[in-house]
């Protein structure tokens, strides 16, 4: 299958990544090689396999209990920008 640069640019947009023109070209080529290799799965007969049937599977549930994380400072130490107890980000709604 042929993959073009525009397609890669669209996927990048979905993945929230941006590429330079050179990177896009390089990526398109690599991508095509890899995706074409994936096509070998097409030779398999998978008609009678149902991915929505489950045997011997049990749901795992636990009580939804509130636990207080003692050290709030520890919890927020990785945030780059804080205002009081809120993580700060650029304005979303004008």
């Amino acid at each position, binding site marked *: 299958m042929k993959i073009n640069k525009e397609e890669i640019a669209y996927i990048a947009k979905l993945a929230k990544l941006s*590429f330079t023109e050179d990177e896009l070209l390089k990526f398109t080529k690599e991508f095509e090689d890899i995706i074409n290799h994936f096509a070998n799965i097409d030779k398999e007969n998978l008609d009678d396999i149902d991915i929505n049937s489950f045997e011997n599977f049990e749901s795992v549930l636990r009580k939804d209990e509130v636990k207080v994380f003692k050290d709030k400072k520890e919890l927020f130490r990785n945030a780059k920008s804080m205002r009081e107890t809120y993580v700060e980000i650029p304005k979303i709604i004008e």
Partner: protein
Amino acid sequence: MKIHKMTIEEIKQGLEDKKITAEELVGTYINRIKKLDGKVGAFLTLQEEEALNAAQKIDEKIQKGLDIGPLGGVPVAIKDNICMKGVKTTCASKMLEDFIPPYDATVIEKLKDAGAVIIGKVNMDEFAMGSSTENSYFKKTKNPWDLSKVPGGSSGGSAASVAAGFTPIALGSDTGGSIRQPAAFCGTVGLKPTYGLVSRYGLIAFGSSLDQIGPITKTVKDCAVGLLAIQGHDPMDSTSVQHEVEKDYLDEIEKGVKGFKIGVPKEFFMEGLDKEIGRAIRKSMERLEGMGAEVEEFSLPIEDSGLSAYYIISSAEASSNLARYDGVRYGYRSKDFDDFEELIVKTRTEGFGNEVKRRIMLGTYVLSSGYYDAYYKKAMKYRKKIQKSYREAFEKYDLILGPTSPILPFTVGEKINNPLEMYLADIYTVNVNLAGLPAISMPCGFSNTKLPIGLQLIGDHFTEKKLLRAAYALEQELGVCNEVPSLGEEE
């Protein structure tokens, strides 16, 4: 006895007999790391002070005649995608360069409970994506057997640390072979446990339905000791084992392989397998037969399509798991942005390396509208077929044997510009993850150029005991584990 050659068993004996203190032991390892890791490049963070303090506490316990635990005083290296409270956990990525987890992973808690002394965090491919540890943002780790070669990956730092005698045990993680392949490349023993046997709580996610933490050690017995310490149900991981687990992996480990039926997929020996590796595996098959195992070739034609299914599923899961890195609550945040969208795009573009971007792109592609049925759904179907193929195989055989990697450790830089070629080298390991099975890689010989060759044994779900027993028998028969790399040092 040189400390760096000591096994966990020997360390425990040495501490028990008071021939050495835990502080001396840990100090000796740290000195060795300081002296030689400049060549190897295994460590990202060394926990010198903390490790020596922990060792002192073990010595106090020994003084008082208290139990020090199954890993009492034993130095451990941790792959840098496993969270440790208050210790930088980077995933070898710029994205998490200064990330300090506010909690311990369950395996870290368990190691501490077992008395282990955590000596530091080790290098890996960024977000565990890669087979050579060349994708680390920070540095390249070298293979201790030949410093011009890669140590394998993604747990390359873990395997190199054990091979170089920096720690007798290290933890790695395995999504498609990331424990077993570096273990093979570095001449060490690496176990990928059954999916669910070891808690993933605190393991930074790559492919959540595939990831599993496991030990890398010098010997099979040490591997058994390591597994016992970290396994078991964890309420913090709903995919962790719900039933009782094996309580002793050592009590029957010396019972041999007599009567074991071992299947060898003939597809493992087809095109692409290095001749020397093929010969070493066949020699091991003969040895196993000589010890009373029944070794038989059979057909398990799942490799090629399995590799595709693996890369589709793991990339799909990665693209979803890595969506959390947006620069908001933790991790890297771009310095320069005008609005929220730009904050996210710039953060991700600047924070992720090439291979990680490639996987996110692949995953996004196979999950995107119009391609979901063609790739992801097909891969999920094939995953079921693989599981069925293994189920049928294990009705006939106790274990499945083959090579861990089709190729010998390659030269640093050799494959970095050809991602597909790098992916193809994972052909013998990825299907095990798709089926959630346990598998162990152990050294079975050396190439003419003195590079280690790894043999892989695959077991049915939760049959680690059998797996370790067979691996131990073969290890004793081959005697390969007694060799260590010289690193240019006098013996």
